[in-house]
């Protein structure tokens, strides 16, 4: 792998203005980013495509290229799986707006999750068609914009693991849907190497974060996951996609730069140890 595969991410920069994040990434000499569309930087419902274009100019001037747009969908109540038609339609429009804004940012792909549903709905197991229908609609809109849709799994969502990602991609049969692995979501849920093999060409992206006990989305190298072994597996299968330190949540908002730098250095140390840097 190469250093440039390690993306910049604003997940944990949400108590700073966007300009601060842009300066930080330049200090770290990181120029490809996964853009986290959330307040205050660019909450999908706050921005028009024209205003997104203005953000693009700021990012361009700051030498940052948006590879992927990821609109917040765990903290904010967004789900294509939910039974309430009003909430579901609001969620679908949210994704469509995220695509349009991502297009203006120059993003090549939108990250998406299968959505969350109540315990009762999960037990009744009647969400599958809503998820398929929702993904189909998002993919078709993405297709018009020339973008891909990257499906992420989470054991608490309606797409639980890598096998479910693969099955969903197969069932949809669309050219622009692909998959990814989130380290934290994979840990304790599936065998990492088997999932890399299973996804094959559908492994488009990686969220590289660590887990310690019940603490998720931690800086790589600070938790229980054998991160360097997992990087070696990615190398073994010739992975060339992006690696995002997805430090989602609030734990690093008061030390955003330090947390980002720690992850970047850990990745660099892996590259050096394996003679790739």
């Amino acid at each position, binding site marked *: 792998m190469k250093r440039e595969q390690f993306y910049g991410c604003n997940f944990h920069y949400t*108590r*700073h*203005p966007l300009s601060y994040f842009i300066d930080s990434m330049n200090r770290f000499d990181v120029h490809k980013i996964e853009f986290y569309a*959330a*307040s*205050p930087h660019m*909450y999908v*419902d*706050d*921005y028009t495509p024209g205003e997104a274009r203005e953000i693009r100019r700021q990012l361009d001037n700051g030498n940052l290229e948006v590879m992927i747009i990821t609109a917040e969908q765990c*903290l*904010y*109540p967004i789900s294509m799986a*939910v039974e*309430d038609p*009003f*909430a579901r339609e*609001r969620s679908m429009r949210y994704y469509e707006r995220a695509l349009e804004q991502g297009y203006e940012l120059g993003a090549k792909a939108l990250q998406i999750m299968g959505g969350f549903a*109540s*315990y*009762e*709905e999960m037990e009744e197991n009647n969400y599958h068609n809503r998820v398929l229908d929702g993904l189909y609609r998002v993919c078709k809109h993405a297709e018009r914009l020339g973008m891909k849709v990257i499906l992420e799994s989470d054991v608490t969502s309606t797409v639980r693991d890598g096998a479910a990602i693969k099955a969903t991609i197969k069932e949809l049969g669309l050219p622009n849907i692909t998959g990814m692995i989130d380290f934290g979501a994979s840990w304790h849920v599936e065998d990492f190497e088997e999932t890399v093999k299973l996804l094959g060409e559908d492994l488009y992206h990686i969220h590289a974060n660590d887990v310690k006990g019940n603490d998720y989305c931690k800086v790589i190298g600070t938790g229980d996951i054998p991160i360097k072994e997992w990087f070696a597996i990615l190398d073994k299968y010739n992975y060339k996609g992006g690696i995002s330190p997805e430090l989602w949540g609030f734990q690093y*908002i*008061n030390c955003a730069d330090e947390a980002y730098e720690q992850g970047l250095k850990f990745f660099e140390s892996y590259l050096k140890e394996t003679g790739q840097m």
Partner: protein
Amino acid sequence: MAKIKKEQILGTNFSYTGHRLSYWFESMKRLDVSRVEFYGCAPHCYLYDVTPQRAFSISRQLKENGIEVCVFTAEQCNYPVSTAINDYRVRERSLEYYERALDVASVLESPYMQMVTGGGYIGDDPEEDFQRTIDAMYRIVKHAEKVGVTIVLESDPTTSVKSMADVARVLEIINSPNLEALIDTNGLMGSGEDFAEVLNKIGSHVKHMHFIDAIGPQHCLIPGTGNLPLEKDLEIMAEYGYTGTLTPELWGTRYNDWCEEAMRQSLEFLRSRAE
């Protein structure tokens, strides 16, 4: 020794957001709860999903299930709202959010609406954040007066109103009968203020409390499972003659998988120390 009264203890749907509303109604019956702090959060009552008709429908369902809403609390920590932030767009949407929350509180016939003010950017001047909040409070409190709901203001060290001293300052500046105070035991821990002193200073304005435990970085815990002096707080409350309500505000997803048991334990802690 004086004790708080069982009627002061409210149930709530915090931590029930993994379930349908119908499940929560049944759970409240099992726990013998009829008065609640109602949490305006998806999937039960997200403000942007609640049309006026839907608010009326929720109100009807609450009544049919024998539930009286004493405080309405719209989610404001996970959802991005702030009266303080130096960003016109975010702030303006936030103000509309609070106005919507007041409307829903009114339809649900809740006398009170809880509010935290939200934070600014790291590095911004806290006093400027506070002044933006004051400007926002004038507008929000005007709306509260129009819809006949009283705001109970809560402090949080991460927001522009960091302590109960800040709450007192806001109350003094705004000076409206539709703006009162709320004590959150975790908020007090954060500000380092003394429970008895706060009650002595602004107790007449305190209409509601979030009564929760904490240990280290873990907040919003079942009373009795952390290390806050909650038993002592209950005694202080009773001695003072506090007549407002209190809720075990089990905010977050920690108890989602066993929300009823967590609520049962919380209510038991409070009820066993009340008369």
